[in-house]
């Protein structure tokens, strides 16, 4: 059997004494496209952020390519997982992330944003890094905006630059955290098209989204989060067209109410 590209094993996350989720297990194979849906506060974004350790899980392991992240140590009263900064930085180079609010670096041009990781993290020389970055900008259709600062770009363009910035690091997995939620409805399409094109290349991705229709067309698997864990999962047809469990059914029905 193939080792999964990414495995989450028994992941717990609490904020204070409120458990966001507990015991989440997930296997992601190369080429999988996983859509995570669920109500606000169901922990979708938190789960995604635990994968690249923007949030530290309270228990459980993240295993990339068969290698668990962090080192386990015996402690009185159980084991404890310790994470050193270097190993997290290496993990994050292999797992790209795209944020709801884009989070472009406003003091750098579009090209500068895409080059930054290549130059600072991968230590590439500026000339080849610039070429690579231009290629990524061209891939998201923004080669002509290379010298523009984020303040002069539309929301959709900003998000496409952010996608190019993540792609430049050649990640093995892409995480999207509600990539279109902060966008003007007229600009959602261009970002979804960009993500769709990446899907067509066979990239592995995990997408937290409220765009149920997009999830249906793009995902190979859909997870519905509720009650502190993965409440229901399956193919898009199973989860979105014929949900079996009551909370999933209510959620999907709510989304369909105004479809036409």
């Amino acid at each position, binding site marked *: 059997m193939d080792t999964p590209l990414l495995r989450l094993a028994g992941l717990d996350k609490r904020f204070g004494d409120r458990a966001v989720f507990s015991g989440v297990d997930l296997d992601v194979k190369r080429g999988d496209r996983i859509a995570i849906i669920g109500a606000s506060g169901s922990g979708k974004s938190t789960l995604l952020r635990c994968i690249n350790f923007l949030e530290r899980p309270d228990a459980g392991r993240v295993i990339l390519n068969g290698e668990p992240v962090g080192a386990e140590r015996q402690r009185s009263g159980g084991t404890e997982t310790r994470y050193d900064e270097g190993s997290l930085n290496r993990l994050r180079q292999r797992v790209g992330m795209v*944020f709801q609010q884009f989070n472009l*670096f406003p*003091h750098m041009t579009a090209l500068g944003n895409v080059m930054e990781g290549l130059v600072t993290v991968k230590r590439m020389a500026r000339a080849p890094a610039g070429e690579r970055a231009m290629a990524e900008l061209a891939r998201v259709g923004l080669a002509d905006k290379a010298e523009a*600062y984020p303040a002069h770009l539309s929301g959709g363009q900003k998000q496409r630059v952010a996608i190019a910035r*993540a792609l430049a690091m050649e990640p093995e997995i892409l995480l999207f955290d509600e990539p279109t939620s902060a966008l003007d409805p007229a600009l959602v399409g261009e970002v979804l098209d960009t993500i769709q094109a990446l899907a067509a290349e066979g990239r592995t991705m995990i997408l937290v989204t409220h765009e149920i229709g997009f999830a249906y067309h793009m995902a190979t698997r859909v997870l519905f989060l509720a009650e502190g864990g993965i409440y229901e999962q399956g193919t898009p047809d199973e989860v979105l067209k014929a949900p079996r469990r009551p909370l999933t059914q209510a959620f999907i029905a709510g989304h369909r109410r105004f479809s036409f």
Partner: protein
Amino acid sequence: MTYRWDFTPLLDNWQALAMGAVGTVRLFAVCLVLGLGFGLIVALARRSRWRLARWVSIGFIEFFRNTPVLVQILWFYFALPMLVPVEITPFTAAIFGISLNSAAYSAEIYRAGIQSIEPGQWEAARAIGMSGLQTLRRIVLPQALRRVLPALTNRGIEIFKMTTLASVVAYIELLHQGKLIASLNFNPLEVYTVIGALFFLFLYPLVRATYALERRLARSD
């Protein structure tokens, strides 16, 4: 009553004034670099994950913010040599007093700037694998410094004017030389008018230069 302005004693003593001006600029340059530079280190220590570093930083800031620079200069000049066997020149005493005081103030300015940067900026940088230090250097500080540049300019102006306090330990700077000229020629009106004007003539172009810098940094808006 009519006062006859007479600037000839000042012109006759232009060399003494020039010496003072050199002393002022020299002290300013050293205190500007040390004060603003050390202030950044203090600000970073205040955000450190180590509690001891945070405590030392806060203690430093509160001590030097809440004691007068004049007292600090006098203390370093007269009191410190009684505690430890070192010889302190007026120049050194003035550097200690002014730089440490400025470091305490500018540390708080840097802290405000760093805290004003959205958490998303840190997250985006960390998410492409940048270390904490790289994020600070490449992403957070360039934006933070830009935001606090007007406040740092204020600090710089303040440092320039604080150099006059060094006259209290007989450091040769503009005010010290002016006092000397005034006491020899009984012409305080002309002397202190000219000293004041000289400060303005030094500072105003410097301030204009920082405005130009602000405009240059505003390119990305």
